[in-house]
């Protein structure tokens, strides 16, 4: 069975402005998919719509089946059991995605306690293990507040939190955009390894072609909320069919050439 099945998904503001239009894709258990697009192309809104977390003033149409449950129009109590257990999200900016007043250890402990029913020493051990998995030291980082650790460490902690509930699908929404390049590579490798090791499905969202190509084979290119192109990343990079994709590839190449890297 497909883990995530999105059919004709539309997201619009209450005023009627469409943000995502007629988006369809399927994601099987253990599969990976990249969503590429520039800022404002509807990538992040799509990730929120998938977990039923669109903010006030936004509404979804169409169908999102997450583990067989219809998310669009569903009541909160139908969605809560899906979140964490079926799908978890890693956000772009870990500083704002972590509670500034809660120690990292407690934030990591929460989904573990809730989804795996652990308490006391078993919970402590699981938190240390979850932090070790993302190469963080429990004694040091577990006791720290988010502002006391580095951006890379924060994103590692956010990944530990997202994975603590043992989800089948990880949605990574620009997970490395807020990090500097060397840290980016480490985080991408970490995500790649963990997703592989757990056999999780991955929905990877980014504006960065290079980053997406490191993570997924299959991609969808979004422009102004419309899927303009889909296929393997190699095909999209080498022979883009849509002018927008061509432009995206061209400007990415141009930037690379200008920087003299790669």
């Amino acid at each position, binding site marked *: 069975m497909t883990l995530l099945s999105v059919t004709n998904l539309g997201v619009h503001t209450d005023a009627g402005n469409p943000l995502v239009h007629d988006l369809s894709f399927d994601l099987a258990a253990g599969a990976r998919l990249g969503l590429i697009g520039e800022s404002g192309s509807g990538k992040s809104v799509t990730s929120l719509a998938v977990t039923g977390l669109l903010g006030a003033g936004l509404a979804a149409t169409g169908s999102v089946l997450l583990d067989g449950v219809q998310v669009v129009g569903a009541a909160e109590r139908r969605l*809560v*059991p899906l*979140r964490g*257990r079926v799908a978890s999200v890693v956000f772009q900016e870990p500083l704002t995605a972590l509670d500034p*007043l809660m120690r990292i250890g407690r934030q990591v402990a929460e989904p573990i306690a*809730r989804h795996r029913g652990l308490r006391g020493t078993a919970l402590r051990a699981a938190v240390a293990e979850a932090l070790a998995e993302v190469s963080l030291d429990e004694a040091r980082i577990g*006791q720290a507040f988010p502002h006391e650790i580095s951006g890379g460490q924060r994103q590692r902690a956010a990944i530990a939190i997202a994975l603590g509930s043992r989800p089948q699908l990880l949605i990574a929404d620009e997970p490395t955009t807020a990090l500097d390049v060397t840290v980016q590579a480490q985080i991408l490798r970490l995500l790649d390894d963990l997703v592989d090791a757990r056999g999780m499905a991955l929905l990877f969202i980014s504006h960065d072609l290079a980053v997406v190509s490191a993570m997924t084979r299959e991609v969808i290119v979004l422009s102004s909320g419309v899927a303009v192109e889909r296929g393997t990343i190699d095909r999209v990079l080498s022979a883009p069919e849509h002018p927008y994709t061509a432009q995206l590839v061209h400007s990415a190449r141009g930037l690379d050439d200008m920087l003299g890297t790669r």
Partner: protein
Amino acid sequence: MSAVLIAPADVAGARRNRSWTLLAGLVLVGAVLLVALLSLVWLPYAPADTTGTRLEAPGGTHWLGTDKLGRDLVTQLMIGARIALVVGLGSVAIGAILGITIGLTAAFAVSWLDDTISAALDVVIAFPVLLLAMLIVAAQGASLGSVIVAIGLAMSAVVARLTRVLTKRVLGEQFVTAARTSGTRWPGIVVRHILPNIWPTLSVNLALQFGVAVLAEASLSYLGLGAPPPNASWGRLLQEAQGTVITAPVGAIAPGVALIMLVIGVNFIADGLRDVADPARKGSR
């Protein structure tokens, strides 16, 4: 905490500032608290003992002199400390519980209910605290209880409005969305994320409100609407000393100074609390 990545000098500086105001506040309020506790077990004279000479000057037998009925002023002040603290704590408790509940309700409510609550709060806040308290005291009769309820109700509107705004701000934060994506239910989000994040600001406000409550009680008593006579509130002492303020100034100065000590002390604590309650500020200093 030894491994945190913040410059040690900043932390030391912040700690020194913090401990200064917090310490001064705790000393002032602690002194009033000690006197209030002492008054429960020991008083220099019986509260209604009028055996002293009328308007006696400060001296050996009556340290701060006596009032126009010949009662010992120190005794009256000690009882007043008790009343001031009871009024402050009682009304802050009422104001906080009621205000936080209303504020959270408004923040989570659908827009029409939110608008209705906000409009109602604006109306209550537009009433001067004293006027509102006077209305309630007039309706219920003057007693220590109705003074506390009156001040607490007036305070709850301010606390509710603050809670509502703070909650809405936290609700817009990404870590709330992040907590929801991991499956946290709304009650869990309120308890674990919203309350801790609004508490630093709210606790400072509540501490300030404590001072406002003490002053409001003194004002009500001064106007004759406070706790009835056997209760020697500082406000009532001020009012009774008003007629003799030229001939026996200590009778007015002493309760005034006591009032100032308590309110300044509470404000100092509020200042110190702000830094203690918010770990993020320690690093950002």
